[in-house]
């Protein structure tokens, strides 16, 4: 009896240790594949070399999506300093040793988004057309999306008892639905930001680099970064200078979900361990007393 139980305990401990050590032995090898870009994913191509910093896209975005203004100190201009719950799209300026460039910031609509992977109640969703959207009814306001977004995009209305998450949804219920493209791309006077199918935009971006290799950094930001984005960038100054971080090709979601799915595949491991523990606790309680 005793030997049997000990053997059983050992086996169970082995199984448990195996589950616990699985990620240890293989590390990131547990990561699942990145999600991939689909043919009908829509997005934008922003070419920083064409941007003249007129901020027409900012105005159009606020107008189309009914966003409040953020006046400057004198209260004359709408002059947001950064993305916030009042501003989903902004033009910023980099001026430094690597040159001068504008950069447009908004949700990147990642191909394999961390926010969607982490959201506990499926409030953030990757729609079939690639838009990362937010569902007001599902959201609990846990703000995990803010913590895990590599671009710090989702914003929260902290000073509201019924605060919402605010982020660019590519005008999916506004300009895109009404006029077939987001307000920012429609407003851009210089075609610095254009709307289209991401795969086509990628071809377009690469052609531009090929046509004027001296003008561009030889990289389309968003093709691979963190698993890729539906918003692509071209620039003449290094992307990190524009606040676009260097990211590994594997998305963070692929690592997180890979580990999670290995541990909890069909809930098998927890169920088996639960069963084993029940058996041990039962024996300990009702079995013959040994010592």
């Amino acid at each position, binding site marked *: 009896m005793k030997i049997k139980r000990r053997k059983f305990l050992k086996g169970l401990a082995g199984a448990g240790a195996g589950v616990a050590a699985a990620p240890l032995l293989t590390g990131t090898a547990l990561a699942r594949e990145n999600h991939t870009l689909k043919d009908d994913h829509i997005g934008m191509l922003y070419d920083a070399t064409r941007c003249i910093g007129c901020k027409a896209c900012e105005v159009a975005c606020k107008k189309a999506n009914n966003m409040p203004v953020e006046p400057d100190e004198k209260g004359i201009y709408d002059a947001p300093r950064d993305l916030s719950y009042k501003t989903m799209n902004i033009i910023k300026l980099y001026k430094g040793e690597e040159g001068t460039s504008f950069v447009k910031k908004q949700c990147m609509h990642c191909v394999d988004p961390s926010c969607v992977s*982490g959201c*506990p109640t499926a409030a953030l969703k990757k729609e079939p057309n690639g838009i990362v959207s937010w569902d007001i009814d599902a959201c609990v306001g*846990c703000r995990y999306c803010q*913590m895990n977004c590599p671009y710090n995009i989702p914003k929260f209305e902290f000073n509201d*008892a019924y*605060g919402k998450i605010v982020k660019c949804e590519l005008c999916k219920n506004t300009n895109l639905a009404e006029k077939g493209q987001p307000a920012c791309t429609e407003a851009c006077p210089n075609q610095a930001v254009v709307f289209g199918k991401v795969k086509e935009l990628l071809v377009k971006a690469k052609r531009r680099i090929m046509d004027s290799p001296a003008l561009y950094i030889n990289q389309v930001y968003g093709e691979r970064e963190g698993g890729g984005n539906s918003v692509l960038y071209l620039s003449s100054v290094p992307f990190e200078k524009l606040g676009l971080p260097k990211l590994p090709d594997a998305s963070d979601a692929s690592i*997180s*979900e890979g580990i999670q799915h290995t541990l909890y595949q069909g809930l098998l491991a927890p169920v088996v361990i639960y069963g084993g523990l029940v058996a041990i606790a039962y024996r300990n309680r009702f079995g013959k007393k040994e010592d």
Partner: protein
Amino acid sequence: MNTNKKPLGGKILTAPVMVLAIPVLVALYFLAYRFIFGIGGPVSNLTDHQSWGVWKVLGVLVGAALVNGGYVTAFIVYIFNKGHYHRFVAPAVLVSFLGYSFAGIALLYDVGRYWGLLNFFIPKYWQPNSVLFEVAICVMSYVFILGIEFFPNILEKFIPDSESGKNFAAKLHSVLDRLLFLTVAFGVVLPTMHQSGLGGLAILFGQKLSPLWQTPFISLLYLISAIAMGLFTVTAVEILITEDLRDKAFVTLLSKLARLGKNVALVFILLRWVEILHMGGLGKAFELNVESFSFWLEMIAFGTAIYLLRNSKNRSSPRLLFLGACLTLFGGALYRVNTYIVGFNPAPDVFYFPSLPEFMISIGMFCLEIVIFITIVKIFPVLTRE
């Protein structure tokens, strides 16, 4: 079960309880403010960049690990069948039950859309890819399990002394006792899942988390450190609530617990260093900044605790036991604060320190927990007394 559990009795509204009530009232004042005006300033210093602060990190992450005693005692007593530790179970389960309940309460004021928490009960909102979803479901189920584990202690008050008349409480008690093996097994599986999940949340932070803490094995590190913390919470709490520190048998029992705790802490530190080297974080440890300072403080706390508790002579001194326990708990708490706040660098020059109201809400809730604990052990048979 031939236990000597007794209610402590005595007045409920003693001087210490009155003193503890002050921060509770302050916290309630600020909470009212939070629910009327939102979580932003002046209530908290949370921002879009650092949007998890002390409420989540102290109230939920650190809180859940500190009260992990219910898990480790269930493991030791019911799975490893070490019956002589049984006197530790009831107080540990009570601490866990209160701690986890308050972690849930912390979420109510931390999340921005608390009414949305009901969505966790609606299958169409379930998102099994999310580590946070898994943690939330496990924690909620575990509070329920802890309630069942603790409930017999409440019932015992209503069981008459003589065996002759078995009342309803006695019958229910015996049913629960017979089914305890089912509950206890949940009481081991669920914390294993969510304690590791609480670390796993950080994987999605990617490069925003310093390589001193970021690793694909962070779930395992959180689980191991939570076990060490659970063991040392039992040690510390038992030393605080015992009547007689000269009771040799009692101290011997505690020192065995501490030996296990020390070994687990050692495994944690070793694995921690393997991962720091693996992730290439070593250089970060020697930069001169808040991050490296906080990192070494964490290491020193664990190292000192392990050193203090290195031999059985030291471990038989309640003073050193208590000190070692507190150091480990501090180190484990700091490990969590470091992962989610200090080592978390969403953008250059993001600095977060909690506001006074934010801090007071966390402290007030902690005091309320202690008041409830004291009150329950006075009324119900939880603590073992000769």
